[in-house]
């Protein structure tokens, strides 16, 4: 009987014996399959990552501007001068603020999508989050440049509502204010929040989908008001999702150098410092040392997140 496999028995025999050989040695098969991707990521990616990290232990000669290739911690000491510490502190504060705000804005969307939206509405919510997530990063930043411009829509809305005074008073507040929204920390914050928000919604929604409805009913049956149910039942169960989302919002804010360059004051963030030091200044060691900061912060963050079970919500 001939089996009706398309292209069946006409195979050259060496292919067949190769296939048999691989079947008998599953370890070899796995090795061959992984060879290309692991070589690629291991050599191209990890190789360059390590070559960068090693350079953070070199230093730059102040007089010649050349890189001295000997081990020193001098560059890391340079990281601790007040000006550079300021940059680190500013970036971490911004990342924390963006993360908290993203959690607050994302929660109602995620909760509604997980618990109340059904059928068509569910798909609509899903696409409604997915399209902004995947649409071009630069276009999103550009849209906010249009919104926050002096002659742009936000100022127009404020003056149409006769609230110009409120906006001026807000911009007068030190630190978060500035000459106009597009050169203030508030502007930078809004754009960060906008661009990273979908990264928070998706994991929170995934966590909330897994909260059984009867837990909420049990809580109500036991006499809890909705506020109490929220605080003692929903929030603790959603926490791993929020932490998972915060990994993205935090990490992405720490490493970004384009948003604060386009919308914000001229004070630097970590990403901009890295970019400036490796570019015109040619100080690769200091740039490399600066990149270690987000790596260390994220390493610590991931360690805490793992202990809280955040990875199951991804």
């Amino acid at each position: 009987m001939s089996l009706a496999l398309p292209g069946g028995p006409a195979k050259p025999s060496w292919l067949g014996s190769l296939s048999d050989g691989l079947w008998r040695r599953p370890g070899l098969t796995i090795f061959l399959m992984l060879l290309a991707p692991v070589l690629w990521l291991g050599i191209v990616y990890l190789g360059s990552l390590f070559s960068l990290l090693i350079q953070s232990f070199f230093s730059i000669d102040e007089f010649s501007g050349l890189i001295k290739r000997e081990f020193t911690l001098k560059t890391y000491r340079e990281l601790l001068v007040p000006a550079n510490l300021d940059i680190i502190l500013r970036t971490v504060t911004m990342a924390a603020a963006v993360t908290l705000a993203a959690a607050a804005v994302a929660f109602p969307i995620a909760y509604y999508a997980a618990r109340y939206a059904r059928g068509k509405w569910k798909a609509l919510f899903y696409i409604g989050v997915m399209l902004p997530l995947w649409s071009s990063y630069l276009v999103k930043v550009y849209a906010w440049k249009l919104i926050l411009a002096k002659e742009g829509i936000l100022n127009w809305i404020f003056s149409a509502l006769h609230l110009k005074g409120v906006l001026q008073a807000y911009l007068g507040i030190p630190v978060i204010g500035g000459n106009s929204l597009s050169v203030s920390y508030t502007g930078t914050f809004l754009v960060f929040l906008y661009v990273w928000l979908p990264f928070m919604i998706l994991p929170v929604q995934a966590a909330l989908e897994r909260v059984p409805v009867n837990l909420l009913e049990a809580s109500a049956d036991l006499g809890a008001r909705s506020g109490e149910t929220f605080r003692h039942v929903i929030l603790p169960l959603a926490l791993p999702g929020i932490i998972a989302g915060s990994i993205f919002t935090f990490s992405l804010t720490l490493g970004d150098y384009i948003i604060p360059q386009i919308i914000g004051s001229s004070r630097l963030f970590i990403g901009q410092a890295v970019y400036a030091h490796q570019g015109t200044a040619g100080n690769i060691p200091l740039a490399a040392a600066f990149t270690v900061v987000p790596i260390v912060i994220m390493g610590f963050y991931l360690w805490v997140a793992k202990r809280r079970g955040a990875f199951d919500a991804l």
Partner: protein
Amino acid sequence: MRFKGAARLKGEARAPMILKGAAAAGLLFLHLPILLIFVYAFTTEDKSYQWPPPGFTTKWLSVTWNRPDVWEALKLSLQVAAASTAMALVLGTLCAAAVSRSKFFGRETVSLLVILPIALPGIITGISLRSAFNLADIPFSYWTIVLGHATFCVVVVYNNAVARFRRTSASLIEASMDLGADGFQTFRYVVLPNIATALLAGGMLAFALSFDEVIVTTFTAGQQQTLPIWMLEELVRPRQRPVTNVVAMVVVLVTFLPILGAYYLTREGSETAGSGK
């Protein structure tokens, strides 16, 4: 004792108004800025970002159409995205197949290795690649861009393929072997048709990711201009506002297609493409 209506028992409770309002406001916040781009693409104002637009015109569409620099940048972006997607498809599928088929020493390490390029901030990937190119004296070229893009595109294909492999039953492969097919025939006629839509979805997402990438690209492109780099120049030093508006609108439209396509291809499964950008 408190009784609830039948609707409540089925978990079909009505949402409180405040929740509805907050969710709607959040979604509006996500979408209004993008819609604004579409209005600005047709404004007659060419010196500022004036709102409301003093008038509407379609002339910037043809002005943009006749701009060779935009076409050059678009061409380079498409070429880079195509090459990186192809590489990511091969590497990502191999990795996913190996990781999901068997348990081996270092399995966790491999999946961490795949995720790392996207978990660490893009600037770190970018500056590492650049300093490695410098150390190795590799001049910037089309291939240095592709190298960077393929590295972080692997994870998208990998995620989609792993999820599908997990759903595909191993007994299908055993059945194929029992019926006399060798390993390659099994792959061609059993495995590939099973994972095809997941690969297509992963490939589309990888394409969209590469097409839009700017942070790593600024470090690996040298003097070459991809479309996002062209946009970035315009953002930092606006010279051609109307042309930028039109390009922004086109980019939004072009990226929507693969996203909707990827969603459509994977919507039946529990895993839906795109949630792991």
